[in-house]
């Protein structure tokens, strides 16, 4: 195998392994990560239930599942290089021959594998507690889920390069981004039923919004016949694929520019307080 490709793959494996091990080596992380999304989903399920819309409970728990991944993207992808920089790890990354893009991909794969158990636990608890009515189209659900995660984590990679230039601001920006993006993406409700058409069009620039729309359409149906119009789902899938590729490209470009700039100015490993 080409030595560069081999190094890239080995780096991906190593970073994936570290991140996965950090979760699976400490199974209590699963319980820890389930906490907040579970209670939010539970509260919103009871709200749907009190409004006489049992079908809505599925949206609440699907939202909890996806919020687990969104939180992971923000706190364990976007902020990671910033934290690594504060702790001196980033210096090791840039002085080692390991490609940064491979480290990011490894972080993403590890993040997905690490978040999956808590997301699955949440889905199972939701199912056991409420058995929300669902009409899943499994092949489309699987494809949508994979594309949503791909574009979300690609966004995390792009953000990680941006956050690299920030200090303490990164945490505040993360805190400010988490809830508004969840709301605009319609994480806990179908935005097509709540937002005006103009707002629905605007939020299509957020990968989570596109993914949620497709997942909600392929998993649940609010109409009595249970029939799903697949045209918007195919549109969403195409959008997700385009976003994933574009964000991946943007992330790699931005990192290269920042790395180059940091090396020239001698600020690449400077810790900000």
């Amino acid at each position, binding site marked *: 195998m080409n030595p560069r490709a081999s190094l890239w793959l080995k780096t991906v494996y190593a970073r994936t392994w570290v991140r996965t091990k950090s979760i699976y080596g400490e199974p209590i992380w699963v319980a820890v990560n389930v906490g907040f999304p579970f*209670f939010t989903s539970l509260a919103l399920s009871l709200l749907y*239930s009190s409004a006489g819309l049992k079908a809505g409970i599925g949206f609440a728990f699907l939202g909890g599942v996806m919020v687990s991944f969104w939180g992971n993207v923000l706190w364990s992808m976007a902020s990671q290089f910033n934290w690594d920089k504060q702790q001196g790890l980033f210096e090791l990354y840039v002085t080692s021959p390991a490609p940064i893009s491979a480290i990011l991909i490894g972080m993403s794969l590890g993040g997905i594998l690490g978040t999956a158990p808590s997301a699955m636990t949440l889905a199972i608890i939701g199912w056991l507690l409420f058995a929300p009515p669902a009409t899943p189209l499994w092949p489309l659900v699987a494809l949508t889920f994979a594309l949503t995660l791909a574009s979300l984590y690609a966004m995390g990679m792009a953000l990680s390069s941006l956050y690299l230039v920030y200090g303490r601001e990164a945490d505040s920006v993360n805190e400010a981004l988490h809830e508004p993006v969840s709301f605009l993406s319609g994480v806990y409700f179908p935005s097509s039923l*709540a937002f005006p058409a103009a707002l629905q069009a605007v939020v299509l620039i957020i990968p989570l919004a596109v993914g949620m729309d497709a997942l909600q359409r392929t998993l649940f149906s609010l109409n009595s016949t249970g029939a799903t119009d697949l045209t918007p789902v195919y549109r969403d899938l195409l959008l997700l694929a385009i976003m994933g590729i574009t964000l991946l490209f943007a992330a790699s470009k931005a990192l290269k520019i920042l790395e180059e700039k940091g090396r020239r100015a001698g600020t690449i490993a400077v810790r900000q307080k």
Partner: protein
Amino acid sequence: MSYLSSIIASIRVGWSRDFGWTNPFLGFSLKTIAPIASTMTAVTVLYIGFRNGTSIASGQFPMLLGFILIGATLYAHISAYSWVPTLAIAEGKWTFVFPQVYVSPKSSPPYLAGRCLAAFASSTVTSVASLAVAIALSSLLFGVAIPLVITPLSISLFGVALVVNILASMGLGFLLGAYAIFASKFEWALPTYVSGLLMVFSEALFPVSLLPHPFSDIGNVLPFTEFIRASRAVLLPLGSVSSYFYYLALSFVGGSTLLAIGLLAFRYAERRARRLGVLDRKVV
């Protein structure tokens, strides 16, 4: 008097930590966006339930919208500052600030109380701003006038309720802080769990009577539930001043009890941590 100056100094530390990195306007704006979004999520769920569900009549919807707007905003307010003592300890261990507090003459309770009060003040501003924005956005999105009672009297009584709730929130903060002193990992997780539990049990989004026994009883005795009820009693038309004072008294009694328990637990934890030598143990 020296306790008071320690608390005032800690309030300044808290504000400096929260807003020192930017200008105050941007800092407050960033802190206001999240509660607006979480409140809007709750009211949007209610709207979808109203449009597609079977249980809410058209006449009930504006009142329920007001119920949830107030509950969700105040829930966000409580969550924003009740876990500040835990954060101050956990982050303080990382940044070596917390061990420095112990070599100062007044030790940690005034420091944590000051940090909590700083967060209370900023969270009060952001909560009121987010409530105003959420009301405007809800009226715009759902096309309904929300029946809120906005008079000098109702606002003053609401302000008193906010102040009374400091007791309960600070008590919860000290309780969580007692855990955080010993925590070497997952110290961030407990406050998020408690915060999530409060969303279910504090009547933020739905009446606790919807919960099965004994969970509904737990919700009924929480001072946070009484605080939210008192606020609704003066800000919504169906409430009354007498019910406001009833709920406020319950909130005061519950809050004082929680504060006493929190302080005792924290004092015990602090003494034990000193003996075990873990006060400056860095979280890994």
